[in-house]
Structures are given as structure tokens and as C-alpha cells.
């Protein structure tokens, strides 16, 4: 299946070397956005060009790759990127979180706890958490340099003033190891606690914005909040209708135009694994009786 006209993992060796240097610097300074010379990739910006470049720089022929998009292994974006690396690197792929050595993700952190040795690669659209408050890049860099992060709280203040509670539900700003304020990419704030003290290495790649940053294993990541309005991870107040899980992040699926809906785990691998081991939700059927999804 591998097309030998490509260099391993598509990018040339000098480019991978350049990206690895940026990754190493990112790991050395957790949460700091390292500029890198992002390449044109054979896919549009917004499809994960940053994540793909980071993954390409980390891949070895022995790796097992998993790609997820909003938690699912079977959406266009995930399937395309998985096929891309199958063709250009010939690496093994999997849908099981536990079997993967590199997981490229868009908008979710897997429900299954990650383990030491795994690398989680995030696709990042806008790496700068202060962007919408302070449009000048020179100024935001200065603010990072001098640790002037009061403005981040102005955003949270505005949320409470308008909605009565911190309404930011995704891309919730975090402080890494007590120093840099970081945008954790548009993961739901439900996933924010999983960023902290993870045994896995977490890498973030923003292709269009040409930035790479990292959260090394066992790094403290704190979600910003107010003393009287503490951070709260939120999810839909339901159990998964397929596997019955109560602790996973849910997608709402509209089933008809009569107001019918069901809530299912956004992490498809997590849901499948649970159903395979006999858990059944309100609308689910046992796996042996056919595919309920």
C-alpha cells in the first residue's frame, strides 16, 4: 500500500528535523508557542495541517496510529488523515486508544486514560488564547513574555456578566505549570482536567498560524476561573443511549423531525469497547444482535 515515491511520512527529512526542533523547544518550555516554518500540506487549512505535520515528525515505522475527529474514528477528517499516513508512511493503524502509540485528535481527548509512552497530537486552529481580546500579535507576545494575563479574566468576567456563569464551553483557557496561558485547542471544557498530569506527551500543532506548543507528561494544567465562580467541566446531563456510560462526553444525535433525539458517547472507541463487554444503554441492543448505531 505504501507509495515509495514519497519520503517516509510525506515530509522531507530536513522539514521533519525542523519540526522536531520546534517540538523539543515546546516540550522544554511547556505552553510556550514555538514558531515553525509550516509547510503546504496536500489538504486544506482547517483540516489539521498543523497536527499532520507534528504527527509526521513524530512517526516511526514501528508506530501504531489512531486518528480521531470529535472523538470519532470514522468521520471524513479522521479517515482521510489515517489513509494519508497509511499511504505515505505505511504504519499500522488502529481504532483502539490503548493500542495506539500516536493519537492525532481534533476537538477531543479520548475517554480511556492515556498511558506513558503515548503521544497525543492536537490540531489547533488558533493557538493564541488572547487573540480575540487583543488582536495585535506584537502585544500578545509581550503579554506572554511579561505574564500579563489579566485580560484573560476579562473574557471570563464578560461571560459571567452576560450569562450568569462562565459560558465558555470549549477552548477554555488554561495555565500551564504556573506560567504560560494556553489555548487547549477547541476541546470541550469537560476534557480540560485530563490535560493535567497526564502520563502521555501532548503536542499541539497549528499549521496556518505556524505554531507548535506542548504539554509534557505530568505537567500541571489549571483551568482559569474566579474564586466565587470556580471552573466546572460540563456535559449533557444524560447517560449514553448505546452503552449506558454516565461519565463520558456525549453527542446529541437528532433522529427524526418529531423532536426525537439520542445521546451517544462522542468517543466511538470507548462506546464500542463498553458495548462489546456487555454494557447496554436505554436505546441500545447487544452487539451480537447487530449494529444498533
Amino acid at each position, binding site marked *: 500500500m505504501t507509495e515509495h515515491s514519497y519520503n517516509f511520512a510525506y515530509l522531507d527529512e530536513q522539514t521533519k528535523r525542523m519540526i522536531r526542533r520546534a517540538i523539543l523547544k515546546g516540550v522544554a518550555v511547556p505552553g510556550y508557542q514555538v514558531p515553525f516554518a509550516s509547510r503546504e500540506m496536500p489538504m486544506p487549512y482547517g483540516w489539521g495541517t498543523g497536527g499532520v505535520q507534528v504527527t509526521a515528525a513524530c512517526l516511526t515505522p514501528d508506530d501504531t496510529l489512531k486518528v480521531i475527529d470529535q472523538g470519532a474514528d470514522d468521520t471524513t477528517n479522521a479517515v482521510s488523515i489515517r489513509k494519508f499516513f497509511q499511504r505515505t508512511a505505511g504504519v499500522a493503524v488502529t481504532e483502539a486508544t490503548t493500542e495506539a502509540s500516536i493519537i492525532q485528535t481534533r476537538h477531543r481527548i479520548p475517554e480511556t486514560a492515556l498511558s506513558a509512552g503515548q503521544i497525543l497530537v492536537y490540531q489547533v486552529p488558533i493557538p493564541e488564547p488572547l487573540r480575540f481580546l487583543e488582536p495585535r500579535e506584537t502585544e500578545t507576545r509581550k503579554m506572554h513574555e511579561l505574564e500579563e494575563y*489579566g485580560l484573560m479574566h476579562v473574557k471570563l468576567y464578560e461571560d459571567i456578566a452576560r450569562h450568569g456563569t462562565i459560558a465558555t464551553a470549549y477552548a477554555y483557557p488554561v495555565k500551564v505549570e504556573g506560567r504560560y496561558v494556553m489555548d487547549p485547542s477547541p476541546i470541550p471544557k469537560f476534557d480540560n482536567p485530563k490535560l493535567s498530569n497526564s502520563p502521555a506527551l501532548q503536542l499541539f500543532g497549528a499549521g496556518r498560524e505556524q505554531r507548535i506548543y506542548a504539554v509534557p507528561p505530568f505537567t500541571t494544567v489549571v483551568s482559569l476561573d474566579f474564586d466565587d465562580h470556580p471552573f466546572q467541566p460540563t456535559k449533557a446531563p444524560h447517560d449514553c443511549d448505546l452503552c449506558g456510560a454516565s461519565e463520558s462526553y456525549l453527542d446529541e444525535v437528532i433522529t427524526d423531525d418529531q423532536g426525537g433525539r439520542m445521546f451517544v458517547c462522542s468517543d466511538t472507541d470507548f462506546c464500542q469497547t463498553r458495548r462489546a463487554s456487555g454494557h447496554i444503554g436505554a436505546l441500545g441492543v447487544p452487539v451480537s444482535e447487530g449494529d444498533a448505531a
Partner: protein
Amino acid sequence: MTALFQLDDRPLLSVKGLTKHYGSRIGCADVSFDLFPGEVLGIVGESGSGKSTLLSCLAGHMTPDQGQVIFRTTDGPRDTVTMAEAERRRMARTDWAFVHQNPRDGLRMGVSAGGNVGERLMAIGGRHYGDIRAKAIDWLGRVEIAADRIDDRPRAFSGGMQQRLQIARNLVTGPRLVFMDEPTGGLDVSVQARLLDLLRGLVREMGLSAIIVTHDLAVVRLLADRLMVMKGGHVVEQGLTDQVLDDPQHSYTQLLVSSVLQV
């Protein structure tokens, strides 16, 4: 009894030989003065006389070519020109305040009035929403903005209200020195009068020192204790406000005073 008359005779801000060139042109040249605690200094002059350049250099927005700006910080006098940028910026949001001529430059137009006032509090570590909001309401009251406008954006405010909001936003952290660049420019006369009244009250009440740049002699007559007249980047005359305005010595000052329309 003695305490009442114990005046602080050490200057809060001491400027020595401040010079700024734009290429071969003079921005301001060899400006020196002392500003004492609780004192309001007016700087007047025509457009292009270097008064805004001077103010920018004093407030750290621009680096002067020569000279010293010595500010008496809580731990002794420091030259703000040579101090580290981090320290200067910290001072700019605690001990100093800067009121821009155009409120759009000094406010965040996309953020509510409460958020604008609260920003400096959060910048110095305020992390309690209730406290920040209570303080914002208190300050909106002090600048005569109704408490129910706290969640409105500055866009929805009139020019005078925007300017008052900018003042509240700057004074909320209790600065000791306020820089004002034409604070009443662009406002109509009745709004100007109210704003001046308010400023005078706040300056006296909080014991602020202020440097006000303006071309409006009526503003300095009302607010300033001392006056500096600038022309072509040089200070041509300085002294007590009433003395300078009533008995101008320099020919340019005489021209300036006689140019004011009498109604």
C-alpha cells in the same frame, strides 16, 4: 496641628533634560521640571509644540533620546527610562494612569463597562468576581454613570460618558500619578464643564498628582496649579497658573493668552 501643615517636599516625579528627536527634527528638547505630590501641572502649547511627545516620553510609551524621568516609587526614587520594561508596565497599571484624548484609544470597545473598569483590578491579581463587580459599580457611581449601565458596551455610551468611563477605568486601582492628554477634547462645552468639575473633585479627593496636556487655557485655569508653556519643542515659560495667564512674560505666551476668544 503640625501634621496638617506637614507638606511633602520631595518631588513625586522629577524630569531632567528630557530630549526626543524624530530624525533631525525636534520632538521636545531639554525639558526639566519637578512635580510634587498632590500637584496638577498643565502643559499648553500649539499643535506640534511637542507637548504630546513629552507626555508619551513621561508615561513610557516612547523612549526619550536623553534625560531622566525619576519617579518616587514605594521603594525609593527610580529612573523609569532605564528600568526593566516588565517593571515599567506594572507601574503603568498600578501607580500611573493614562487618560487618552479619544476614549476609543483608552477603552476596550468590545467589552462591557464593568469589564473595562475591572480590567486593571484583574491585571493586578483580582480573582473574585463579586468584589470586582462591586468595585466597578462603586466607580461608575463616582463618575456619574448609572449602575444599570454596567453591562452595556462603551459603544452605547455618549462621548462624555465614554470619557468618564475611561477615567473610572484608570483611577480604580488608586494611582498616584495621572497623565491626561486633552481629556476634554472633542466634547461640547457643557459636557466639558461637568467633566472638569468631576476631575477636579477626584483629583482633590484622592490627592492625585496629574500632568494635563491641553491647548485649552480654560481647562488649565480650572485644574492646574502650575503651568508650562511649550513652543517648538522647548519650554518657553513656566510658573503658577494664574501668574502665567494673568501676567505672561514670553511673547508666545502673550500671543496665546490674547488669542482666547472672549464671550
